[in-house]
């Protein structure tokens, strides 16, 4: 090891331009998600596998229309939930536990840029998920209706709602507790959220269950993609309420360490 030349460490402080920080942070967040085996399993492998099995193996009966037409919207909702809620909650929970978020707080990286980078990474992963799920769905005979813009509105509001919930969970509980809670909620919402069968299958509980974010997203997506609805207002409203409430709570309760 060579000696330090004089002046090599002379102070030259300054923050990088925000776009450069944002780009670097987004790439880092994406690497973290795509390298994490459990996150890839949760976000890509399980939704894809589930879609193939649900469409090709008729153990869950479907009322009308093609099997793919019913299951693709539900699995899309599941994919959004997996990335924006489950993956993000677990990631944030452990980043807090490892002291990463605290330490980044002592760098020039503004917290707002960190959160925008996380959101951008979630959106990129979702783009990947939606592309793959739609391609597999089309190969399985999916015949989508409706407008892309309606789907986009639902996915964006759903992402906001799930991100708020994910940050709320991961930002308040310890890493391992977050892991357990997020996975449990993922499973509960998979069953009760209209992914595998319509919420109407739960009879009297339907009015309550249909307000769950996963149920609102899967129902709204079916309204658009199966029936060609333009704006499934009730579902959009439910997601908007979840988004506002969870993001407000997260911004109040989130702890960086």
């Amino acid at each position, binding site marked *: *090891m*060579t*000696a*330090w030349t*004089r*002046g*090599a*460490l*002379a*102070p*030259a*402080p*300054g*923050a*990088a*331009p925000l776009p*450069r*920080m944002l780009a*670097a*942070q987004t790439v*880092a967040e994406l*690497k*973290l998600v795509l*390298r*994490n085996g459990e996150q890839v399993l949760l976000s890509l492998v399980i939704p894809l596998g589930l879609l193939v099995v649900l469409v090709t193996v008729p153990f869950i009966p479907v009322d009308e229309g093609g099997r793919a037409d019913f299951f693709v919207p539900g699995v899309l909702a599941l994919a959004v939930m997996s990335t924006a809620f489950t993956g993000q909650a677990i990631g944030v929970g*452990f*980043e807090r536990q*490892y*002291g*990463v978020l*605290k*330490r980044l*707080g*002592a*760098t*020039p*990286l*503004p917290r707002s840029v960190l959160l925008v980078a996380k959101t951008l990474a979630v959106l990129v992963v979702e783009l990947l998920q939606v592309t793959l799920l739609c391609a597999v769905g089309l190969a399985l005979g999916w015949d989508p209706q409706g407008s892309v813009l309606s789907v986009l509105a639902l996915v964006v509001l759903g992402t906001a709602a799930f991100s708020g919930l994910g940050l709320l969970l991961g930002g308040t509980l310890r890493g391992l507790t977050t892991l357990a809670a997020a996975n449990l909620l993922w499973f509960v919402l998979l069953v009760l959220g209209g992914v595998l069968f319509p919420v109407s299958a739960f009879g009297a509980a339907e009015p309550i269950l249909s307000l769950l974010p996963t149920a609102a997203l899967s129902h709204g997506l079916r309204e658009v993609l199966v029936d060609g609805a333009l704006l499934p207002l009730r579902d959009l409203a439910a997601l908007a309420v979840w988004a506002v409430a969870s993001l407000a709570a997260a911004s109040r309760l989130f702890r960086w*360490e």
Partner: protein
Amino acid sequence: MTAPALDVVGLVKRYAGRAVVDDLSLQVRPGTVLALLGPNGAGKTTTVEICQGFRTPDAGSVRVLGQSPRDASLRPRIGVMPQTGGAYPGLRCAEMLRLVASYAANPLDPADLLERLGLVEVARTPYRRLSGGQQQRLSLGMAVVGRPELVFLDEPTAGLDPQARHATWELVEALRRDGVSVVLTTHLLDEAERLADDVVVVDHGRVVAAGTVAELTSRGASGQLRFRSTPGLDLDQLLNALPAGCAAKESPAGQYLVEGPMDPQLLAAVTAWCASNDAMAADLQIERRSLEDVFLELTGKRIRT
């Protein structure tokens, strides 16, 4: 005198009514290294975390490079190395350093820094697979890569092997030479003795001693001078030849011990007196207090948990 790099006055922080930092004041002169010493639980990390803007004090004032610790515009000017952690477990060593470098306008070259920190071989190893010492060195690199004016290092050499410890010390010395101010929290008194311009000893949230290493080790108490000579020299006569406040004894025969304020004059007086008695002072040994002696005197020898 120019404004201090860090100016802490009357700092108080209470947890559940108990003051963990209790009216603590300290200053870091620009371009110098200050070592913050103290037993576990003395309030060192709390003090440093207030200076870094992570905690708010209950009383007192803190100015970091003339700014409030919470100022966003202060962030590029300081570098922080926490005691543990602080990196993404899933990012590789070099990726983590480059990420932090990307936050800075004029960062050091991450590749060069990795080489100097001895991390080239593990540049592509994920952080979670690095050894404790490698994680420490990366963390040090993350603290300095943005070319800050003031660096906080919380036990930077804990768990390092001797080579890595020396590399760390050389980095701290180079920082100081280039005008960077350093606040160093440490348990290692030889580290403080080697690196620090000023030492602040903290216990129970208060400053119990402050000054340069030389001031602390020479303050108050005495040094010891041992020598061998002809048995049976007249000690009363010796004491008359020495400044007031010295003590002398012979035990066993021919082995002498003089205690007193150890300075060149005392040494000269002892050897001159031996010469005047036609005695040879052999195996002369001067024992000065180390910083460790001072530290143990100030904070007690009971182990803290």
